C-alpha cells in the first residue's frame, strides 16, 4: 500500500447518510466537523433526503468520480452497496461504514452500533418494565427500513423469552399522525402495557401520546435516539428510556479512521459506539449536551 | 333493394325527466337528401346521435338498409358506413388538420405506421374539391371556427360512407362556402349516397333537400316534398303556428360617434389599418368570408388580443382597453362565436352560466344574491323561450340552440352600452331569431349600440343600419342599408387587398 504521507491538508472526505434530512444526524455532523477541524481536513455531509439505495449508490459513484480521498457511508442494505464500495476501493479510495452496516460488504470497517444487539438491549429493558406475560406494541415509522426491522427483530427475540406479546404498527414519519395513531391504537387496545419506538420520530410520539392521554405510570414508553422531545418526556416521566448509540462518535471516528489511513497507513478498524441507555437517572446530564448537538 | 337507408319505428329517448324523442317514426330515403327541421330542443341532434351510436334509444326499433339493428357505438356506425358532422364540432385541437381528417379506428397506412404522405395528398384533394384553403399541417387550435367546421365536413366526406348526416353544418359558413357544400351534396346523391341535413336556415333546407321532415317537442310532425315546401310552410310546421318575419326597422342612430377606431393594426392575426366608427343607437353589421378577421377584430377591440398600434376612442375620449374586464367596465360586451371554447362553462348550471358576467350586480356586498339570480334567469328564459327543465340544470344537457340563447342572455343581462355580437343567431331557430331581432331593435331604441358580425347575409340586410365588409384583415367596403345588396357585399368580401 503506497499511500503518500504528504499533503494531508488537502484531504477531502465525504460522509453519506440515508434519509439525511432528519434530526438524528446532527450529532454525527457535529462529531464529523469537530474531527475535521482538529485534523485540518475538509468533509462534506450528504445523502438522499429519504432512504433510497439507488440514489445513495449514485451519490457514492459521483464521489468516486469527483475524486474524494475517503468515503464514509451508512450501509442499509445487505448487498446493494457491495459493488460500489468495491469500485471505490479499487480506485484507492478508503470506505468506512458508519451507523448501519451489512455483512459481506467489502468496506474497511464499521463504526456504529449493531442494530440487533441494540434491539436486544431494548428488549431487555422492556422486559424489565412490563414483566413476564405483558403486551406491548412497536412503533415503526418506516416499515421496510432494514435497521428498524433489525432492531425490532432483536427486541422481539428477547420478548419471546419473557412471553411478552407484541405487535408492530406503522406510525408514519409525521409526528402528529404518529401521536394520533398511538392514541387510536390505545382506544382499541386499552390493556396494552407499553409502546416503544424503533427510531427517533416514533419515540417522540411515544412520549407525547402518554402525555396527551395522561397515562404516565400506567403505560410505558421508550425507544431510540436522543431528541429534545424524547429527553423532555423522560425528564417529565412520560417516557422511561431511550437507546443511545452515540451518533457523535460515529461522525468523529469515521473522519479519524479515514485520516489515519492516509496519514499513517493504518487500516480502519471496527468501533462499537452503542450500548448507552438514557433514562431518568442520567437524562439531566445529557439534555443540554443533546441540545448543543453532542449527544 | 330496400328503399330506405334508415327507418325509425316508435323511437323514444328520455334524458332523466326530459323526453327528447317521443314515439318518433321517421325514414330517410336512399340516395336522397332528407332535410330535418325543428325548433331548438326539438330532438334533431338526439335523432342524429342515435344513428351515430352515440346514444341508445329507450324504446323502439331502428332499421338500417332494411335490417333491424342496434347501433351500439360510433365504431359500429363507422363500420356500417355512417358518417356524421356533429353539431358541437368535436375536434382534436392538439392535432393537425390532416391528422383530424383521418382520425378513426383505421388510420391509413401499414399495420403500425401511418402513411403521412397519403394523408396529406388526400386531404389536399378533398380541400380542393371543397374549395378550402387551409394548410394541411396547421394545428387545429390555430384555426378559426369556420375553418373547423369545414374540416369536420371534409372529414365526414373522407371516408367512403353510404349515409352522411350533417347537424347544422352551415352555421359558421359564409354564402360562397355554402354554395360549395350544395355542389358537394349534389354530387354525393349522384353517387347514390344518402344524406340527412339539419339546418335552421329554411331557404337552405329547401334548396338542398328532396324531402323535408319536421320534429316538434320530440314528436314527429310529418314530411313535405321539395316542390311543396316554402319557408313559411316549413316554419309553421316546426313552430306549430304561422311565424311573422320582422321586416326592416327604421334607423334610430344618432350622429354622435360612441366608438371610433383609428388605424388599428394587429400583425400576428393579420388586421391591417382598420378604421371605422359606431354611432349611438346604431346596428353596425360586419360581413365577410370566414377567416376575414372579423372575430379577431372584435377580440382585439375588447382587449382579449393586444393591438400593435392604433387608437380607440369612446365617446371622443381615447381609451386603453387591455382586458375584457376593462372593456366591460367601459360598457362593451362581446358575445363570442365559438360557443364551446369561449362561451360555455360546461360543468356549471344554466343560471350560473347566464349570470356570471353580471355577478357583481347580482350580489349584495360579497355574497351572491340567489333570488336576483333566479329572477334574472327566469326573465330571460321566458323572453328568449329557452327550453329547459330547471334553471339549475347543467348547461351541457341543453340543446345547442338553447345553449346559444343562454349565452346571448348573459350579455343582454349585462346591458352594455356597446354590444358586439359574433354570429349571435348561430344555431337558433326561426321563431327565436325573430325574438332576437326584436330584442336588438328594442335595445337600440333605448340607446344601446350594436356591432353585429354575421355570416348570414339576410340577417345583416334586414337589421343592420350600415354594413362593413372585411377581407383578409382589411375593411374592403362600407354600405348603408339602402345601398347594400348581397352582390355588392360578396364582391367586397372576395376583393383582394387594395394596397
Amino acid at each position, binding site marked *: 500500500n503506497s499511500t503518500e504521507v504528504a499533503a494531508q491538508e488537502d484531504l477531502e472526505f465525504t460522509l453519506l447518510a440515508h434519509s439525511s434530512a432528519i434530526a438524528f444526524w446532527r450529532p454525527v455532523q457535529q462529531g464529523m466537523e469537530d474531527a475535521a477541524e482538529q485534523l485540518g481536513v475538509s468533509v462534506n455531509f450528504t445523502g438522499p433526503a429519504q432512504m433510497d439505495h439507488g440514489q445513495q449508490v449514485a451519490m457514492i459513484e459521483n464521489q468516486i468520480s469527483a475524486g474524494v480521498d475517503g468515503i464514509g457511508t451508512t450501509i442499509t442494505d445487505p448487498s446493494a452497496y457491495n459493488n460500489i464500495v468495491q469500485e471505490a476501493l479499487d480506485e484507492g479510495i478508503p470506505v468506512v461504514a458508519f451507523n448501519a452496516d451489512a455483512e459481506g460488504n467489502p468496506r474497511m470497517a464499521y463504526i456504529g452500533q449493531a442494530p440487533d444487539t441494540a434491539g436486544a438491549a431494548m428488549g431487555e429493558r422492556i422486559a424489565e418494565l412490563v414483566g413476564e406475560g405483558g403486551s406491548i406494541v412497536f412503533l415503526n415509522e418506516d*416499515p421496510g427500513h432494514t435497521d428498524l426491522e433489525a432492531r425490532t427483530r432483536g427486541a422481539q427475540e428477547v420478548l419471546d423469552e419473557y412471553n411478552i406479546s407484541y405487535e*408492530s404498527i406503522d406510525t408514519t414519519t*409525521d409526528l402528529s399522525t404518529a401521536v394520533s395513531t398511538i392514541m387510536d391504537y390505545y382506544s*382499541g387496545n386499552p390493556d396494552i402495557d407499553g409502546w416503544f419506538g424503533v427510531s427517533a420520530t416514533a419515540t417522540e410520539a411515544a412520549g407525547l401520546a402518554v402525555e396527551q392521554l395522561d397515562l404516565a405510570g400506567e403505560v410505558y414508553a421508550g425507544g431510540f435516539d436522543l431528541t429534545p422531545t424524547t429527553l423532555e418526556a423522560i425528564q417529565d416521566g412520560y417516557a422511561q428510556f431511550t437507546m443511545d448509540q452515540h451518533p457523535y462518535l460515529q461522525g468523529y471516528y469515521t473522519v479519524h479512521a479515514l485520516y489515519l489511513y492516509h496519514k499513517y497507513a493504518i487500516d480502519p478498524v471496527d468501533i462499537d459506539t452503542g450500548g448507552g441507555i438514557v433514562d431518568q437517572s442520567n437524562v439531566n446530564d445529557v439534555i443540554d449536551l443533546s441540545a448543543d448537538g453532542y449527544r | 333493394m330496400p328503399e330506405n337507408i334508415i327507418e325509425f319505428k316508435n323511437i323514444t329517448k328520455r334524458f332523466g325527466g326530459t323526453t327528447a324523442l317521443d314515439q318518433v317514426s321517421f325514414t330517410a330515403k336512399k340516395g336522397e337528401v332528407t332535410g330535418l327541421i325543428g325548433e331548438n330542443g326539438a330532438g334533431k341532434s338526439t335523432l342524429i346521435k342515435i344513428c351515430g351510436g352515440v346514444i341508445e334509444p329507450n324504446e323502439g326499433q331502428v332499421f338500417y338498409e332494411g335490417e333491424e339493428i342496434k347501433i351500439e357505438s360510433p365504431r359500429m356506425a363507422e363500420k356500417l358506413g355512417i358518417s356524421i358532422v356533429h353539431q358541437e364540432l368535436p375536434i382534436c385541437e392538439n392535432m393537425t388538420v390532416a391528422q383530424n381528417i383521418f382520425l378513426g379506428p383505421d388510420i391509413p397506412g401499414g399495420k403500425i405506421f401511418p402513411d403521412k404522405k397519403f394523408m396529406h395528398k388526400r386531404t389536399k384533394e378533398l380541400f380542393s374539391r371543397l374549395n378550402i384553403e387551409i394548410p394541411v399541417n396547421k394545428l387545429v387550435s390555430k384555426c378559426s371556427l369556420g375553418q373547423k367546421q369545414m374540416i369536420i365536413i371534409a372529414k365526414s366526406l373522407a371516408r367512403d360512407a353510404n349515409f352522411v348526416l350533417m347537424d347544422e353544418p352551415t352555421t359558421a359558413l359564409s354564402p360562397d362556402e355554402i354554395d360549395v357544400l350544395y355542389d358537394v351534396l349534389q354530387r354525393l346523391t349522384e353517387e347514390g349516397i344518402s344524406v340527412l341535413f339539419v339546418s335552421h336556415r329554411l331557404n337552405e333546407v329547401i334548396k338542398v333537400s328532396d324531402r323535408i321532415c319536421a320534429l316538434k317537442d320530440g314528436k314527429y310532425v310529418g314530411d313535405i316534398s321539395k316542390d311543396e315546401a316554402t319557408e313559411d310552410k316549413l316554419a309553421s310546421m316546426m313552430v306549430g303556428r304561422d311565424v311573422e318575419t320582422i321586416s326592416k326597422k327604421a334607423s334610430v342612430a344618432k350622429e354622435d360617434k360612441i366608438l371610433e377606431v383609428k388605424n388599428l393594426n394587429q400583425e400576428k392575426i393579420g388586421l391591417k389599418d382598420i378604421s371605422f366608427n359606431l354611432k349611438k343607437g346604431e346596428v353596425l353589421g360586419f360581413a365577410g368570408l370566414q377567416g376575414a378577421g372579423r372575430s379577431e377584430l372584435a377580440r382585439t377591440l375588447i382587449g382579449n388580443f393586444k393591438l400593435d398600434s392604433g387608437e380607440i376612442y369612446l365617446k371622443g375620449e381615447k381609451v386603453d382597453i387591455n382586458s375584457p374586464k376593462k372593456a366591460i367596465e367601459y360598457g362593451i360586451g362581446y358575445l363570442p362565436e365559438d360557443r364551446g371554447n369561449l362561451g360555455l*362553462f360546461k360543468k356549471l348550471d344554466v343560471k350560473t352560466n347566464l349570470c*356570471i358576467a353580471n355577478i357583481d350586480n347580482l350580489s349584495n356586498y360579497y355574497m351572491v344574491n340567489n333570488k336576483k339570480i333566479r329572477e334574472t334567469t327566469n326573465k330571460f328564459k321566458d323572453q328568449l323561450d329557452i327550453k329547459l327543465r330547471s334553471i339549475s340544470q347543467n348547461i351541457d344537457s341543453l340543446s345547442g340552440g338553447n345553449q346559444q340563447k343562454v349565452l346571448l342572455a348573459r350579455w343582454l343581462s349585462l346591458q352594455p352600452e356597446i354590444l358586439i355580437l359574433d354570429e349571435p343567431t348561430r344555431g337558433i331557430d326561426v321563431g327565436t331569431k325573430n325574438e332576437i331581432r326584436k330584442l336588438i331593435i328594442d335595445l337600440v331604441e333605448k340607446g344601446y349600440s350594436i356591432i353585429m358580425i354575421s355570416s348570414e347575409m339576410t340577417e345583416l340586410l334586414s337589421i343592420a343600419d350600415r354594413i362593413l365588409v372585411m377581407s383578409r384583415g382589411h375593411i374592403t367596403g362600407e354600405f348603408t342599408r339602402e345601398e347594400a345588396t348581397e352582390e355588392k357585399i360578396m364582391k367586397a368580401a372576395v376583393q383582394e387587398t387594395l394596397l
Partner: protein
Amino acid sequence: MSDVQSKNNLLKDKSLQIVKRREFGVFLALVLISAFFSFMSGSFLTYRNFINILRQTAELGIMTVGMTMLITSQEFDLSVGSMYALGPVVAGTMVLELGLNIWIAAFLTILIGAVLGMLNGTITLKFGIPSFITTLGTMMLFRGTILMISDGWPVSGLPDSNFYGIFGGRFSFEIFEGRFINIPMQAVWFIIVVILGYIILQKSKFGYKIYATGGNREAAELSGINTVKVKMICFIMTSVTAVFAGFTSLSYLGSVSPTQGQGMELQVIAASVIGGTALFGGSGSIVGAFLGAAIMGVVRNGLSLMGTGAYVQQALIGLIIVSAVIVNVQYSKNE
C-alpha cells in the same frame, strides 16, 4: 287537507334534495366505512372517538379546504406539506431566536405564508408554467430552507402563551352541574375553516369566479373575470391554510419537526378529490372536501383502533380509499 299535506310534501322535498346533493355519495361512503369500523371495533362508535377523529383530521382538513378552492380554479399546490412545516418552524424560530411574542411571530408568519403563496402564483401565472412544477420546485425549496433554518432540529421548548391553548388546547364547558364537555380546539378551528371555506367558495361572488375560472378560463376572461387575480388569491388561501394548520399542530404537540408534513400534499389532494373535486378544475365543494378529509381520518383511526399491523395498514388504506370513491361515483351515476 292540504296545509299539512303540502308541508309534508315540502319536508319530503327537502329530504329528497339532500339525498340528491352531489355530496351525498361521499357521505354514503363515509357512513359505510364507519359502519364497517363500528362492527370491527367496539371503541369506534363512541363520543370520545368521534371527537378524536375530528381533532386528528383537523390539520389535513384545514389544508383540504384551501386546496379545494385552488384545484377548482384549475391549479395545484404540492408545496402545502412544506408550508405546513414552514409555518411553525419559522414562527417558533422567531420566538426562540428573536424573542418575539408568539402572537406577533404567528402573525408575521401568516404574512410570510401569504407572500410564498403569491410566489407560487406569480411564477405559475407570470411565466405560464404548470403549477404542478412550480410547486414541486417550491416544495423542495421550502423544505430545504426550513431544514437550514432549523438545522434539521425540531423546534420545541417555546415559552408558555395562551396562543397554544387557543389553537391546540381544549375548550371545556359545563353542560350539567359538574359535567363538562371537552372539545379540542383543533376540531373547533377545523369547523370554522370549513364554514368560511363554504361561504367563500359556494356562496360568495368570488366563489362563482373561482368556478368560472377553473371551468373555462378563456370564457371567464371574456366574461370580465380577472382570472390571474382569482388564481392568485386561491394560491394565497392555500398557503395560508397550510401555515394555519401547522400552527394548530404546533399548539397541540408543543413541538414541530422540520420534516413534518412530507408526502402530505398527495393526501390533501386525495381528500379533495375523494370529496368530489374535479382534478382538472371547475367543480369542487367544501362540504365534499370536509367529507373527503373525514374519510381519510376515519380510515386511519379505524385501522389503528383495530391494531392493524404496519404492513397491512398501508394496503388497507389504499383499498378503502378506492372503494370509497367507487361508492361515491356509482351513487352519483344512478342519480
